[in-house]
């Protein structure tokens, strides 16, 4: 790591940390727009799109090289996960899972850049705050989770039908044969199913956010150490963090596929 924090903050560890956790944003309250988060997420999206288009247009089946090989490996890996976890066929699942995996992975990977590097560059350019890792901002994981949640609802309705979807809330997870008991159970069922459905995207989003936020925080804390000792914990944490960013991207991808796979199943007969 570098010791730029002294030039950036220079007040004390608390200010330094707060400075690092402060987004570059415009607007107030809900209408706050985190420019840095959006910029990096969007920039990575553009990068992925650019590479994807370039490779996709120049596919060489007989003599694959470099990036095409890498993407083929990732694609086969993701495709295998989809095949294992998603029953039935939906053309959207594969590209969706691939995009989530690659995008989340690259956004997480921003964490591996020296924690002060980009903020320092930004300060030099006159930008006061910069939070580099998009997934360490609650908005990004939750936006992905919300998109997946919308898809879960759509898949549910598609697989079960509108009435089936409503039935899922009314008679699940506590089915009953007696009509009276059935009606009594309805409020509980609605509550339970709502919690169950909402907990899926929220847990998914918060898991990713928590991991990345904590990881970033530890990088910041390491950056507070004297410069000549930083490389020991910093190096160890960075190496370990490679595992975390990959794992979190993988978990997010896999959970998306699994949840959509569950949503895609037709409603089982009451039992």
């Amino acid at each position: 790591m570098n010791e730029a924090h002294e030039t950036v903050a220079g007040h004390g560890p608390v200010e330094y940390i707060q400075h690092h956790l402060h987004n570059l944003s415009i607007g107030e309250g809900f209408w706050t727009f985190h420019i840095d988060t959006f910029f990096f997420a969007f920039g990575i999206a553009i990068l992925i799109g650019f590479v994807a288009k370039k490779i996709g247009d120049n596919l060489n089946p007989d003599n694959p090289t470099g990036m095409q090989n890498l993407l083929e490996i990732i694609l086969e890996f993701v495709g295998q996960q989809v095949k294992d976890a998603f029953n039935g066929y939906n053309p959207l699942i594969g590209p969706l899972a691939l995009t989530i995996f690659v995008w989340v992975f690259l956004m997480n990977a921003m964490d591996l850049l020296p924690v002060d590097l980009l903020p320092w560059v930004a300060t030099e350019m006159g930008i006061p705050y910069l939070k580099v890792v998009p997934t360490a901002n609650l908005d990004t994981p939750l936006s992905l989770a919300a998109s997946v949640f919308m898809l879960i609802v759509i898949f549910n309705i598609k697989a079960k039908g509108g009435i089936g979807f409503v039935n899922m809330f009314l008679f699940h997870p506590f089915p009953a044969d007696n009509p009276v008991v059935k009606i009594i159970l309805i409020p509980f069922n609605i509550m339970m199913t709502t919690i169950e459905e909402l907990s899926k995207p929220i847990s998914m989003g918060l898991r990713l956010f928590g991991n990345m936020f904590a990881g970033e925080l530890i990088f910041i804390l390491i950056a507070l150490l004297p410069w000549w000792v930083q490389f020991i914990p910093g190096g160890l944490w960075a190496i370990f963090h490679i595992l975390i960013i990959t794992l979190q991207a993988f978990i997010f991808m896999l959970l998306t596929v699994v949840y959509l796979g569950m949503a895609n199943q037709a409603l089982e007969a009451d039992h």
Partner: protein
Amino acid sequence: MSITVTLFGQMITFGILVLFIWKYLWGPMTTMMEDRTKRIADGLAASERGKQDLEIAQQRAAQRLREAKQDAADIVNAANKRASEIIEESKEQGRQEGKRQLDAAVAEIEQEINRAKGDLRRHFINLTLDTAKKVLGREIDASAHNDIMNEMIKKL
């Protein structure tokens, strides 16, 4: 840390990125990889078939070779047999021809001998008769001594 409008910006970005990846990477690449898998499978199957064909062809070729060798041996045998037959026939013909010519020659010689004997006999008789006529003159009656004459001719 609270939810802000950035969330919706990210959602839109995400949606566009998924569609883009789908259209330009996932679609073409999966198609390509399926094609390649199929082509590799086809190629392997073809090579397997080729190997089998080769084996069959080799077997057939070996069979042909054996047959050809057999045929050649048969032909040589037949030719040898025929050659010896022809030789035997020629020998036989030669022998017969020789014998025939010999016989003819012998017969001719005999004929010549007989003719010469006859001629000689006649000459001798005539000569003897002339000589006897000249020596005996009229004293010898041809008719009286005819039997003696015939006896002499027979002796000759």
